[in-house]
C-alpha cells in the first residue's frame, strides 16, 4: 500500500545511518526472542508430560502467535529505520518517523532547553548515537536515533548555537 506522507511537501529529509538497523535488530532479538522462549516453556513442559493444564493447542498457539508478531516486527524494522528523518529548517527542527503510524514533529530552536546525546552499548560498537531534544513540555518526545557519532556531535552543536541565538522564555 502506497502511503501518502503527512509531512509538509518539499522538505529534504536527512536520513539516519542504515547501521541503525543492526541496533534495532539486537533490541528486537533481546525483547522478542526472549518473549517467545518464555512463552514456549509451557509447550515444552506439556510435551515432556510434566504439566497437564494448558491443552496442547493453547500451548502451541500462544508462542506461535507471538513468533508471528515478532517476525512481522522484524520485517518492518528496515522500513521503519528508513522512515526516520530530520530536517533543519530556518527556525525549527523537523523530526519524522513511522510509515504505518506517522508522526512529524516541529521543535523550534528557541524552545529547546537542552540537547542530550545518548549512546548505548550496541550503538557505541557501531559508532552511532541518539540525539534527544528537550523543551519545557514533557510531550516533546523528539529523539533522533542512529546518527553517526560525528553527525550527532555536529547536530548538537548546531542546535545549541541556534537555540542560544533564538532563545525565548517559556
Amino acid at each position: 500500500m502506497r502511503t501518502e506522507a503527512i509531512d509538509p511537501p518539499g522538505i529534504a529529509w536527512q536520513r539516519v545511518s542504515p547501521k541503525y538497523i543492526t541496533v534495532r535488530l539486537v533490541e528486537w532479538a533481546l525483547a522478542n526472542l526472549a518473549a517467545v522462549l518464555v512463552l514456549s516453556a509451557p509447550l515444552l513442559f506439556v510435551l515432556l508430560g510434566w504439566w497437564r493444564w494448558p491443552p496442547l493447542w493453547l500451548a502451541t498457539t500462544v508462542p506461535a502467535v507471538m513468533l508471528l508478531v515478532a517476525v512481522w516486527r522484524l520485517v518492518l524494522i528496515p522500513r521503519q529505520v528508513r522512515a526516520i528523518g530530520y530536517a533543519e529548517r530556518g527556525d525549527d527542527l523537523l523530526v519524522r518517523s513511522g510509515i504505518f503510524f506517522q508522526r512529524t514533529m516541529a521543535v523550534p530552536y528557541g524552545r529547546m532547553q537542552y540537547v542530550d546525546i545518548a549512546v548505548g552499548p550496541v550503538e557505541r560498537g557501531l559508532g552511532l548515537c541518539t540525539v534527544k531534544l528537550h523543551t519545557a513540555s514533557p510531550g516533546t518526545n523528539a529523539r533522533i536515533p542512529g546518527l553517526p557519532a560525528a553527525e550527532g556531535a555536529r547536530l548538537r552543536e548546531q542546535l545549541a548555537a541556534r537555540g542560544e541565538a533564538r532563545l525565548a522564555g517559556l
Partner: protein
Amino acid sequence: MTADGQLPGQPVLPPAAAGPESSRTPDGEWLRVHPASPFVRGWVALAAIAFFFGRDLVERSLQGQPVFEEGFDRRAPWLLGGGAVVLAVAVLGFVLAWYFTKYQVSAGYVRVNSGLLYRQHRQARLDRVQAIDIVQPLLARIFGLAELKFEVADAGESAVRLAYLKIADARQLRATILAQASGAVAGAGSGSGSVGGLGGPGGAGPGGSAGPGQLTQPAPEAPEFTVLAVPPSRLIGSLLLSEQSFFIVVGGAASVFLSALTDNRAFYFYLVPAALGLAASYWNFFNKGYNFTAAISPDGIRLRYGLLDTQAQTLPPGRIQAVKIAQPPLWRPFGWYRMQVNVAGYGTSGNAVEGNTRTILLPVGKFADVLAMLSLVLPDPGTDQPEAVFAAGLGGFDSDGGFVTTPRRARLLAPLAWRRNGFAATDTALLIRSGRWWRELVVVPHQRTQSMALHQGPVARRFRVADLVLHTTAGPVAPRLTQAGLDEARQLFDEQSARARLARKRQTTEQWLRQVVPAVEPAAVPHTPVPGAPHPGTPASEARTHYQQEGQTHG
C-alpha cells in the same frame, strides 16, 4: 530539616558557619521564617504522638477497665520518659529545621538555605517566576501566618516554599518579588540599567530608586480590580451536577438493585465507606472552591478561594501556557463552564490533589465569566469578534466563528463530534474545540507553543485526516486537534510554526512591564485597571471586560 527534596552531598556545616556564607552573600538581608512555624508545620506529628499515647487510655476507659493496669506504677516512668524523648526529638527537629532555614530576596534572585545535615541552597531567578501562591491552612490562619509558594520554571525545579510568614510579611514579600520580577523595580538581575519609565500602575513609585539588591525598600502592593466571584449556590449546584454525582446515582441504584435481586444485605455495608469517601471528596471540592474570586492587577491574575484553608494565587501576565474550557452535559442547561490552565511548575509540583485545585482558573462560571477570564488570560484575542469566536468554540458547529472542522468524509470516525472537532486561529492564539456531549475548547497562545507534531494512524489515513498535537507544559490541558483534514492539518502545521515564530520575536523579555511594544497593534486594547480608581468590589456584571464592549451580543 529532613524533608523531601534535599540535595545530598552538601558538607555538614557547624552551626557557627551554617548561616549565610558571608563571602557570597549579596546585599539582601537573610531572614528566618516565623518562629511559630515549626509548631504549625509539626502539629500533625505532635497530634500523632498525643494520639498514640492517648488512645490506650481512652480505650481502657471505654471498656470500663481501670485506666491504669496493675503494673503501671513500675512502667510509668519508662512510658513518660519515652514519650518525653519522642516529643523532645520531634520538637527539636522542627525547631532546628526552622533555625537553619533562611531566605533572602535580592538582586533578581530568591535564595533559600535549609537543612541541618544535608544543606540545601536553592536559588530562583525572579524573572522566571511563573506563579506566586499565598497558602493559609486552617491552623496557620488561626495564628495569622501564611505560606508563600514560588514557582519557577528553571529546569523542572520545584517550588520554593517559605512556611510560615506573618500574613502581612507574606503579602509584602509577594509584592516585592512581583515588583522585581515585572521589571518595575531596578535590580532584577538582567543587568540592563534603564527601567524604561514603564513603572506600572502602582508598581514602581518609591521602589524605582532602589539599587540592585536593596530589597528592604518595600514595594507597594499592586492595586486590584475584582473581575468575578463565584456564588456558593452555584458552586454547590455544579458539584451536585458533576460527573461524579452522575456515577454515584448510577452506582447507588445498581447496588440497591443488585442487593434487592440477590437478597444480600451486605451491599449496604459497602455503601457506607463509599459514601464517606464521596462526602470527603465533595467537601474537598467545596472547601477549595468556596468564595472563589478572580481579580486583575498589574502583577497578573489574582485568584482567591477556600473556606477553611485559603489560598491566593498570583499568575503574572503571559504565564498561562494553555487554557481549557469544558462543559459536562449536565451543566449545559445552566450554561456553566469550567476553566483549567497549564502553568509551568503547577503540573509537576506536589501531590495530585493540590495540583488539581491550583490549575483551576474558574471552578464554575457562566459564559460571561468565561469571557471575562479569557480576556485576562489573553488580553489581545487577536480577532475583531472575540465573543462570536469563543461562543462558536464553546457551543458552535461546523464553520461558525471561522472554525475548520473534520471533513465530512471522516464522519464515520467521529459520528457525533465531527461537526464540533475543529480549530480556528486568531492572530494571538489557536483555538481547538471538540466534543458533542462533553464540550471542550482549548486555547493556546501562539507565544506559548513549545513544539508540535502531526500524527496519523492507518485508519485516519484511509479517511485522509490527521491529528495535530501541540506540546505544552505539564498540566491538565493537552491540546490535540483530532481528525482534521490532511491538507488543512498540513497547512496549519506550517502556519502555526510561522505564527509561533512571530509571536516569540514579539516577546523578548520575561519582565512583563518591560515588554516591547507589539509589532502589530492589538485589535482590542487590554483592559488596564486605573490605579486608585474607586473600583474595589465592582460586581462582575459591571466589570465586564472589553470582549463585551465590542457591541456583539451573545445569542
